């Protein structure tokens, strides 16, 4: 017998997208103040809906929603498993924090009136991307995410913001087109677009191999994996801080998430041997190169943006680990570790970017060398940066520690111990750039009479709350891992030994 709440839960995948997608045009039509209220209401509803969705998936397994009742193969299905539910819940928590922060950050500045509809569109498209189970529909979601994200990067209208937006647009659309080309080849080889159906067609035709590689290349460009990361630092650093936080915390994970789904739907390691290793090597390079670049940055936001380049590297290490796994459980743990890393990085990185935003408001600049004494002049921002730094380093008890622990344990128990090296080295390298900044924050200021501006309470406290959340997810993260576990097992069923 199905109860009322089960019937309602079955509609949640559509509801989590619809709330945001319908709020967006309303926010566009409303006045600046009205748009803010619409966004805040939508954000609160979204958190409740996403939490409910995650609880339903945890209780009774994946929820499949057939859009328009057509059903695959002709229709498009949403399929929310534990991995999707975690990403949607993550997006809702970070999204709510960013909405409240932005309400304080932008205030009644008229240049940013269109922030609200664009942000709601971006958020809604991301939720659709995390839910969708159709390779072509994922292309449409990617483009929706791209266009709203690029518009947000350029929203300030400065020369730096506009050129960063253009560079981002060109790279991102080229990435989407590679992905679309790949999907076309996969369709030619298999005749299906639904990811579940794709996973049931065992094909090793050259057409499918070329298709998978093309799609992954496109997604790698969009995730800014080294060496194709050139567009990310200027775009993430020149956008207004709430938008930088969205881009680093959520948007890059969208394209990564599709790569993950596609690789395992098509048993990537068997279809295109060498591809998991290639992705792992690029990931390891990203960890080192991103950290080195972060250390030498002059501006705080550029440092945080290069740290994202490094942290993206960790996500891709999961592919060779799954390939090397000697048991099904190990393969699933590697996937859980990667998604858990995405969660803790999203919380820590949004805390860092929002703290950098608070610094920008208070001082009017973010030159690291001139931020001495920040612990006294902007204590909340300094603490938020420090606590988020703990998660970035992967020190216990942070979320970053849990994901690295899981990675290292899989690497050692499967015999592929060398993958533990970049993971552990990355922590040390992160320490160099985090401590460099903290040391300056702790130094006493050279001139006491710096002009300080008033900061809205939301701008002061939200970064600290997110930073604490990135720490707590390490201690209280078991429900997240419980939600990821079964989904990761199901996902790796086709590739595990």
């Amino acid at each position, binding site marked *: 017998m199905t109860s009322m709440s089960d019937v309602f839960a079955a509609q949640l995948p559509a509801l989590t997208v619809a709330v945001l997608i319908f709020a967006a045009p309303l926010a566009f039509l409303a006045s600046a103040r009205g748009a803010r209220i619409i966004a805040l209401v939508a954000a609160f509803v979204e958190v409740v809906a996403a939490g409910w969705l995650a609880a339903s998936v945890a209780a009774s397994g994946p929820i499949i929603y057939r859009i328009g009742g057509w059903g695959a193969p002709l229709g498009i299905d949403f399929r929310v498993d534990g991995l999707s539910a975690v990403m949607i819940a993550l997006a809702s928590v970070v999204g709510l924090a960013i909405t409240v922060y932005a309400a304080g950050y932008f205030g009644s500045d008229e240049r940013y009136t269109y922030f609200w509809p664009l942000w709601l569109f971006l958020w809604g498209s991301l939720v659709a991307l995390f839910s969708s189970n159709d390779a*072509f529909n994922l292309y449409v979601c990617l483009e929706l995410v791209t266009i709203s994200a690029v518009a947000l990067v350029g929203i300030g209208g400065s020369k730096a913001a*506009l050129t960063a937006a253009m*560079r981002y647009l060109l790279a991102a659309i080229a990435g989407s087109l590679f992905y679309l080309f790949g999907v*076309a080849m996969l369709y030619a080889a298999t005749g299906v677009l639904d990811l579940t159906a794709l996973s049931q067609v065992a094909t090793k035709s050259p057409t499918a191999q070329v298709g998978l590689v093309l799609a992954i290349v496109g997604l790698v460009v969009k995730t800014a994996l080294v060496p194709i990361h050139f567009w990310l630092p200027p775009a993430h650093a020149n956008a207004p801080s709430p938008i930088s936080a969205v881009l680093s915390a959520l948007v890059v994970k969208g394209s990564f998430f599709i790569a993950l789904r596609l690789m395992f739907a098509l048993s990537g390691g068997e279809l295109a041997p060498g591809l998991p290793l290639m992705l792992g090597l690029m990931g390891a390079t990203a960890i080192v190169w991103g950290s080195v670049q972060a250390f030498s940055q002059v*501006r705080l936001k550029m440092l945080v943006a290069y740290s994202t380049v490094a942290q993206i590297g960790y996500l891709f290490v999961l592919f060779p680990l799954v390939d090397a796994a000697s048991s099904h459980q190990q393969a699933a743990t590697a996937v859980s570790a990667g998604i858990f890393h995405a969660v803790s990085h999203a919380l820590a990185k949004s805390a860092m970017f929002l703290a950098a935003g608070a610094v920008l408001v208070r001082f009017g600049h973010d030159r690291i060398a001139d931020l001495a004494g920040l612990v006294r002049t902007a204590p909340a921002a300094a603490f938020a940066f420090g606590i988020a730094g703990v998660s970035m380093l992967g020190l216990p008890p942070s979320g970053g520690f849990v994901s690295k622990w899981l990675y290292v344990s899989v690497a050692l128990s499967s015999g592929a111990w060398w993958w533990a090296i970049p993971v552990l080295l990355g922590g040390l390298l992160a320490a160099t750039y985090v401590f460099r900044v903290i040391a300056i924050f702790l130094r006493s200021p050279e001139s006491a009479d710096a002009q300080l501006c008033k900061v809205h309470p939301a701008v002061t406290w939200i970064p600290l709350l997110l930073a604490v959340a990135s720490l707590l997810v390490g201690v209280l993260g078991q429900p997240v891992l419980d939600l990821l576990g079964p989904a990761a097992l199901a996902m790796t069923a086709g590739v595990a030994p």
Partner: protein
Amino acid sequence: MTTPVLSQTDIYALAGALLFCIGLYGLMIRPHLLHKVLALNIMSTGIFFVIVAVARRVPGQTPDPLPHAMVLTGIVVTVSATAFALALLKRIFTETGAVCLDDTGDVDE
């Protein structure tokens, strides 16, 4: 009568792949932003060629309608993205007078 090495569909698909490569080359080599936006359009047209060819992949059967729906959706997406890229380009031109991205201009404010 011998079967040709390449069927009509294959020629179509290869032409699409060639267009994609021409577009990609233009995107990477041409500095002018309008050329880059056009190059992206050539790339997407190339893919649409391939997808239309995929619809006829089984000779003698009626074409598969699903790829046609994909191409129609793809055209809508490309038109919107192009409109957006042109608007952004116009804004960059009015703000800076430049039509190319320089290599260092966007690092510092």
